[in-house]
């Protein structure tokens, strides 16, 4: 485990990119940190929160990214350096506030760290957040290494203060989650005093009105903002995070940023084209160091852009080239636009080598191209490897919830469906959730979209709708959707799958858990009390009581009140297992009762219910418990139609 809080300048540690970002914030003398969990960003707050008290700053897991960023802004406006971290989707949530914060500017350094997820490996999309920096005139920094994660985060605070506006650091999955050596700098002395709107002149209140410089006429403020931002290029131009390496006048210039710069460097080395190819590494990708780039554009006939995800630098440099004087040499541009670089998904060394070889016209045998003999061995092995589809964990309450939801919707018989939300519950889209989830968009999107389905009755729409969200998702963005439904009498049932954890991202606390990021007691918020206050039917079920849950859901689907809430509450199995070492039940299959594939069962447990703790013994033609995997939750005993799965108190 890294000790990012030690005050030992000059020493090195092996840190995750996200840990290095946290260290950078410490070295910048951070006083306030907020975040909402989201892969690949979660380790930043995960690193900061445990040391917050010791290091004398405030750390918070917030209810959502918007509140997180707004709270961090308050600290900044009050003379305290603040950092807010989130995944790409979080930036969409904060955008409205961000646009308006740009109008006022900030006080002390305010840094927004965004971790994009190229390929969308743990996200609903693979959006590139960099264009928002260009759109809103926000200085944007892209580290390439763990060391730069730390150094650029620290510098981002200075930049924010120099320009009087928020600055943005953009990481990507591979950088955030890869360890690299980081040389530590000094930790500043901890003396901070927060002040905001201290002076209210009772004789002249007009003077104290716009504490943060907000003007009544936005257009006037636009001018202020542009003036403020006009200083940014000079900081970027001289930044040591932009660097060129290679021959004076290379045949090909690679312009790269972020983790892709390391792929580009290695690709040049592997193809042994050092003498022909130069690499311009950009650490400040908005605004661009225009002078530096212009000088290098003159020296090459060909330019190749290597970056993740969108052709952001590529397009910005092409804009720059278009604005260069008429006699300026214009190279040929290669990249995502020209089709030389794959325009989707995560980049990797092999892809970058292929792109480079293509532009250079050299032949290269991909490292993924195996000898025929080895390839045939691989093919053989692939045949016997078991498939490992995504699934709910053994003992997961969501498996029970979706089992009950499927039964209820089928029994109801009106072609009902589920509108899904972000988090573990999204697996309701695939086999472990019996493919019940039919829409899946954004945090709070499940109940939001249900609001619309619930008003289509006048167009002879009669399918019941169950909106599903997790407990953390409920707090994050589902509450307005629920209230809107109640207010406008939209016909849907909100099923809150409350496993009392933000499980997908690593068990961060939320308002329902009653514990804060720093492990201190918070005020616990009751989901059912909140829902009951809306005056609509609210039921709380234990999803492991399948019969009772199905009956409750059926009743709610037929209830005359349009908007209903069912809270399906059972603790996340991983949280339970961390706390209790003992399994609740000792599970086993009575082979005399198990009828396997025969009519009357046909492997319901291993074929349909599909908990990973249940395995099919093909030779014996019986189900078995995999004791290494089984969590001992006992649910399957109630699913087996023959009563063959036995559960004994552990």
């Amino acid at each position: 485990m890294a000790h990012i809080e030690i005050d030992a300048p000059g020493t090195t540690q092996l840190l995750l990119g996200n840990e290095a970002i946290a260290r950078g914030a410490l070295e910048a003398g951070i006083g306030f940190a907020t975040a909402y969990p989201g892969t690949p960003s979660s380790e930043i707050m995960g690193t900061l929160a445990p040391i917050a008290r010791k290091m004398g700053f405030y750390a918070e897991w917030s209810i959502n990214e918007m509140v997180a960023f707004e709270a961090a802004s308050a600290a900044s406006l009050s003379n305290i350096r603040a950092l807010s971290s989130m995944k790409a989707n979080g930036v969409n949530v904060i955008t409205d506030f961000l646009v308006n914060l740009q109008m006022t500017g900030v006080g002390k350094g305010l840094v927004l760290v965004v971790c994009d997820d190229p390929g969308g490996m743990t996200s609903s999309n693979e959006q590139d957040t960099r264009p928002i920096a260009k759109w809103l005139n926000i200085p944007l920094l892209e580290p390439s290494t763990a060391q730069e994660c730390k150094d650029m985060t620290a510098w981002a605070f200075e930049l924010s203060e120099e320009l009087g506006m928020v600055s943005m650091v953009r990481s990507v999955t591979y950088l955030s989650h890869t360890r690299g050596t980081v040389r530590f700098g000094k930790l500043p002395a901890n003396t901070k005093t927060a002040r905001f709107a201290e002076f209210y002149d009772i004789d002249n209140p007009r003077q104290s009105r716009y504490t943060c410089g907000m003007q009544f006429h936005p257009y006037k403020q636009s001018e202020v903002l542009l003036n403020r931002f006009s200083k940014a290029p000079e900081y970027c131009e001289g930044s040591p995070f932009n660097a060129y390496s290679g021959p004076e006048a290379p045949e090909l210039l690679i312009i790269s940023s972020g983790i892709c710069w390391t792929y580009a460097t290695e690709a040049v080395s592997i193809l042994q084209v050092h003498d022909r190819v130069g690499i311009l590494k950009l650490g400040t990708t908005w605004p661009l160091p225009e002078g530096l780039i212009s000088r290098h554009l003159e020296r090459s006939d060909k330019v190749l852009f290597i970056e993740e995800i969108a052709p952001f630098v590529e397009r910005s440099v092409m804009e720059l080239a278009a604005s260069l004087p008429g006699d300026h040499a214009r190279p040929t541009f290669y990249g995502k636009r020209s089709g030389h670089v794959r325009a989707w998904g995560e980049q990797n060394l092999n892809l970058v080598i292929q792109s480079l070889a293509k532009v250079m016209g050299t032949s290269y045998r991909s490292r993924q191209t195996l000898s025929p003999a080895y390839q045939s061995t691989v093919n053989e092995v692939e045949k016997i490897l078991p498939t490992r589809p995504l699934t709910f964990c053994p003992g997961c309450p969501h498996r029970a919830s979706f089992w009950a939801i499927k039964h209820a919707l089928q029994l109801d018989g009106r072609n009902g469906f589920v509108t899904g939300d972000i988090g573990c519950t999204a697996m309701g889209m695939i086999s472990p959730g019996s493919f019940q989830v039919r829409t899946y968009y954004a945090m709070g999107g499940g109940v939001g979209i249900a609001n619309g389905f619930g008003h289509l009755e006048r167009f002879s729409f009669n399918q019941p709708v169950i909106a599903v969200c997790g407990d953390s998702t409920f707090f994050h963005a589902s509450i307005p959707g629920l209230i809107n439904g109640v207010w406008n009498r939209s016909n849907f049932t909100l099923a809150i799958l409350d496993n009392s954890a933000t499980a997908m991202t690593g068990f961060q606390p939320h308002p329902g858990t009653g514990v804060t990021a720093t492990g201190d007691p918070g005020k616990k918020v009751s989901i059912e009390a909140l829902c009951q206050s809306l005056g609509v039917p609210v039921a709380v079920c234990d999803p492991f009581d399948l019969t009772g849950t199905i009956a409750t859901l059926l009743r709610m689907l037929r209830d005359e009140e349009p908007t209903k809430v069912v809270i399906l509450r059972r603790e996340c199995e991983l949280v339970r297992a961390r706390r209790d070492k003992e399994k609740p039940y000792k599970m086993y299959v009575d082979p005399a009762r198990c009828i396997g594939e025969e009519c009357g069962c046909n492997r319901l447990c291993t074929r349909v219910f599909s908990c990973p703790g249940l395995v099919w013994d093909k030779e014996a033609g019986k189900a078995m418990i995999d004791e290494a995997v089984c969590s001992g939750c006992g649910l399957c005993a109630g699913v087996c139609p023959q009563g063959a799965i036995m559960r004994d108190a552990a």
Partner: protein
Amino acid sequence: MTKYASKKLYDEVIDNGLCTLCGGCTGLCPYLFLHDGRVVRVHQCDLDEGQCYQYCPRTHTDMDAISRAIFGAPYGEDEIGIAREVFLARSTDQEIHLKAQDGGIVTTLLSVALTEGMIDGAVETKLDGEKIPHGVIARNRKELLECAGVSYEPSPILEAFNRLPRQSTEKLGFVGLPCHVTCLSKMRLLPPINRAPIENGKLVIGLFCGWTLSHGFHQFLTERFDLTKAIKFDIPHHPAHSFDLYTKSETQSVDLDELRPFINTACRYCIDMTAEFADISVGSGRALFKGWNTVIVRTKAGAELVEIAKKDRAMEIQPIPDESLTNLKRASLNKKRNAVHRIIDRTGSRKDLGYLGISGSLAGKLLS
């Protein structure tokens, strides 16, 4: 492509409007559930052969084979099936009369069978608090009395049998409509697996049936009446033309025509009015003999039970007048003719009788 059995059941029977809601496919199966007047397939079962399809009274049914197994004779032209004896009877038990529909003979015969140790329990219909019929097993006189009376909604009595443990040794009597009896007969022909042994069934009492009311009938009832107060339902015979609901203090009626839309479409393709494969079939005494039952004794087991009941003076008997018997036969024959005509209307061919496995010559006679 081979179709899964449960899918075939859906395509051929359930989605085709032929499901009688007998409960033969549910109760044991974890894929099929009877809910709110529908058989619902909750998950996919990928067995090519399944008992759901095998025992359904609306999948291919070899009437000759069943008849030979029960009576040692092929399925014939008798309008009311093979009968040893037909008579009118009513119970001598006043407690039964208070609860029962007509003459109380079903409850009386079951009571005798229980007392004599012929059966340990009777697979029966019981109405719940909302007057929805369910299959139950009545194991004593008190439970039998709770099952007395008639529901005009289909009752999934076979669910109760399917739910019994495989190891069950209980000797059972069944009380069912002709569709239930057909399903049971198919089970007896080729015994089920993973259910209680069908040989435990020692007695089948069939109920005369014209049709059942489903497709929203229960919803209609709940909207029209306070069902919690209902103690009995009746559709009195011609010339009456009503559906009557009895409470403790009054009788409420609905014109029979209002109920026509609720007649289960499956019943329109049924040729069996008198439960021809039962040991004993029981119907009402019709208008002429109100408070009496018409009883058809068909098998040796049935005859033995009737003899004991007579000897015990559990029931009072009188011969059925020729005119009544003729009317019964005419009604039964009409049901057969109508059903066969409707089936060929559907199949579009006089050679294709759908599920109904009867000889071509019998079909020809019914169609003539």
